[in-house]
């Protein structure tokens, strides 16, 4: 994975760079403040809150996968445990009238995640790579199955709930309406993102990258890769706990699904689809995946299948994720040779689109005949109504699929040639190092 390899620590930035850097964060804060003014409906506020939670969770996951090179299949453990502890904490605070306001409660989740990461991390991080992946899966299954056994604490299948408005109030914020929860999530998201970005700039963050790229050499330099992995694991658990806590506050309930394999899989999808090679990747991925899971489920019944196929396609064709794809073009834009690739992109776009339409059409028709055979064959997918029993449509989908595939293969080879040419001349101009 060459894309994930970043260069050594950058030199001290110039004043203009600094302005750009801090300006970016301030712009992000302003956008977060203004978002509810533009989209004030309850549904969009809930969506924004979900995205914020998802961003923290995906970024915390990327501390493991992107920064330290540890593929975890059980990251939801720390998310879920953070959520459960927070629900219990809210209940205890409410019952005993403790002077702890709700905005501080996510910290409890973070500390919970940290504690469990400290506890479970030492054994898990002894090895990286495949062994770590399997261990994380085993530990996750252990915790998730235990959660169903310890019914009093985890509430069994139904989970446990709490009332966030019963907590000690500061400045008369009740945190009943969604808008207040949005601002809570937004504030914590900004804080957590800044903290996690800062973490990548510390010597520890740099050592994490070194452990990812060449653990043996890290040992030669005098560091223990196990300790570095362990520390990264603990930080990651902390932020995952914060994300879980915010989710628990948002839904006012925590159940065993928080800890489960589906949650772990979703965060992996989000981080990887967004791109693990760049800090911003998981943020893009979290936004994309949240919109996708909310949007696709309205458009088609089998959205999870498309979701899985998108993931497979990203792994196969764009291992750098969405941001990786976009960042690939930066040298071309800098050198001004992007114009040479653009026409071949446009040409390739048509058959690719045809192939995708054919694929979707074929899938929907097959799904109709597998699941609802016998019902009315006039179905609707992606907002387009069509007749699944129509033989011409079957033929059309086959033609689109096969013809599109055949043409797309040819055109993408052309894109490859144009790409080589464009990068070649960009390199001559010195834009590619």
């Amino acid at each position: 994975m060459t894309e994930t390899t970043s260069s050594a620590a950058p030199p001290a930035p110039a004043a203009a760079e600094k302005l750009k850097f801090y300006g970016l964060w301030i712009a992000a804060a302003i956008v977060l403040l203004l978002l509810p003014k533009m989209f004030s409906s309850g549904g969009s506020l809930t969506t924004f809150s979900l995205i914020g939670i998802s961003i923290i969770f995906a970024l915390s996951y990327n501390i493991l996968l992107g920064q330290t090179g540890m593929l975890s299949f059980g990251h939801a453990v720390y998310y879920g445990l953070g959520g459960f502890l927070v629900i219990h904490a809210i209940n205890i605070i409410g019952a005993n009238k403790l002077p702890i306001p709700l905005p501080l409660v996510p910290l409890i989740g973070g500390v919970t995640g940290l504690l469990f990461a400290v506890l479970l991390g030492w054994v898990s991080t002894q090895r990286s790579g495949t062994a770590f992946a399997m261990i994380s899966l085993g530990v996750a299954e252990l915790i998730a199955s235990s959660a169903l056994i310890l019914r009093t604490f985890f509430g069994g299948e139904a989970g446990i709930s709490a009332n966030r408005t019963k907590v000690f109030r500061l400045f008369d914020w009740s945190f009943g309406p969604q808008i207040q929860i949005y601002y809570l999530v937004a504030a914590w998201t900004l804080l957590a993102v800044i903290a996690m970005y800062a973490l990548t700039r510390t010597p520890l963050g740099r050592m994490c990258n070194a452990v990812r790229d060449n653990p043996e050499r890290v040992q030669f330099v005098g560091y223990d890769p196990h300790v570095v992995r362990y520390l990264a694991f603990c930080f990651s658990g902390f932020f995952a706990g914060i994300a879980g806590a915010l989710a628990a506050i948002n839904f006012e309930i925590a159940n065993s699904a928080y800890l489960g394999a589906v949650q772990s899989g979703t965060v992996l999808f989000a981080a990887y689809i967004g791109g693990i090679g760049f800090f911003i990747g998981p943020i893009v991925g979290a936004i994309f995946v949240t919109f996708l899971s909310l949007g696709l489920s309205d458009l088609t019944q089998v959205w999870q299948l498309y979701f899985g196929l998108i993931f497979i396609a990203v792994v196969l064709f764009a291992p750098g994720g969405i941001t990786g794809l976009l960042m690939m073009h930066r040298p071309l834009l800098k050198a001004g040779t992007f114009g040479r690739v653009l026409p071949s992109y446009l040409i390739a776009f048509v058959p690719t689109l045809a192939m995708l339409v054919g694929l979707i059409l074929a899938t929907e028709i097959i799904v109709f005949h597998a699941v609802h055979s016998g019902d009315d064959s006039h179905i609707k997918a992606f907002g387009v109504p069509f007749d699944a029993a129509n033989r011409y449509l079957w033929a059309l989908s086959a033609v689109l699929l096969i013809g599109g595939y055949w043409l797309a293969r040819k055109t993408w080879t052309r894109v490859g040639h144009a790409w080589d040419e464009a990068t070649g001349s960009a390199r001559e101009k010195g834009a590619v190092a």
Partner: protein
Amino acid sequence: MLELIVISTLNGVLFGMLLFLMASGLTVIFSMLGVLNFAHASFYMLGAFFGFQISRWFGFWPALVIAPLLAGAIGAAVERYGLRRVHKNGHVAELLFTFGLAFAIEEVVQIIWGKSPVDFRIPPSLDFPAFTIFSTNYPAYKMFMLLVSIVIFAALLITLKKTRIGLIVQAALTHPHMVGHLGHNVGRIFRLVFGVGTALAAVAGVIAGPALVTQANMAGLLGPILFVVVVVGGLGSLPGAFVASLLIGLVQTFAVSMNGSLSGAFGPLSPDYAATWLADIWNVTIAQIAPIMPYVLLVLILIFRPMGLLGTRDT
């Protein structure tokens, strides 16, 4: 008591052999390709569902042959057109590819056969009690399952130890690059091994389908246990996988049949905190914690013997 021990041992060995049918393929694939096939349990599930569908059309015996062949063909295609493509992006990408594949296969199975269990029945010719011990009828089908797994185990052993292709595979287990340098078509061997490995998992699916529940979540339930087997036995060690399969099979079967709990053993002591949320731990029976036993074993192994029972390689 003796009855319990005999029956549980039989069931445990049976479950263990089934696990080994899958774990053997997984281990060989891991050793050769260096990728842990996350979708391996999905091929087990595909085997069960293909077996169900084919046995509806043609009967159980054709299904026992055709379903694994189909699943093996799909497996070989996955290796050729999927895994080989992502290979250049490293092991993480390979693992993620199989992860996505497992997700997609589960979705497809759910779409075609639905979420509820399908009615996959034991063939009538095997639906009779094989023998009676201590007033318990032991079903013939379970003996058949045991027989099939032992026959395949023996065939695998002979192939690996006595044939030319077995020798190449064995060599590739430890020195995959050297085998390539010696002029063998490594790509074809990989495809073959992947196909055979997934076909073995599918065989396990076909014979386990009627006895257990054939449902779209069966891969998700069994997959993690399979990985526990492979890690506990030692990544890449076939004998280790065998020992670990039997161990986990026996541990789980015995745990399910036991009813003891802390409160049962130390009931009269009954400390005060047994009334708080610790009551769950106090009152839980061994049978209830059977599902988490493999994972407890995994954590213990990782603490005391990180390379696994018979593993030598540190990956």
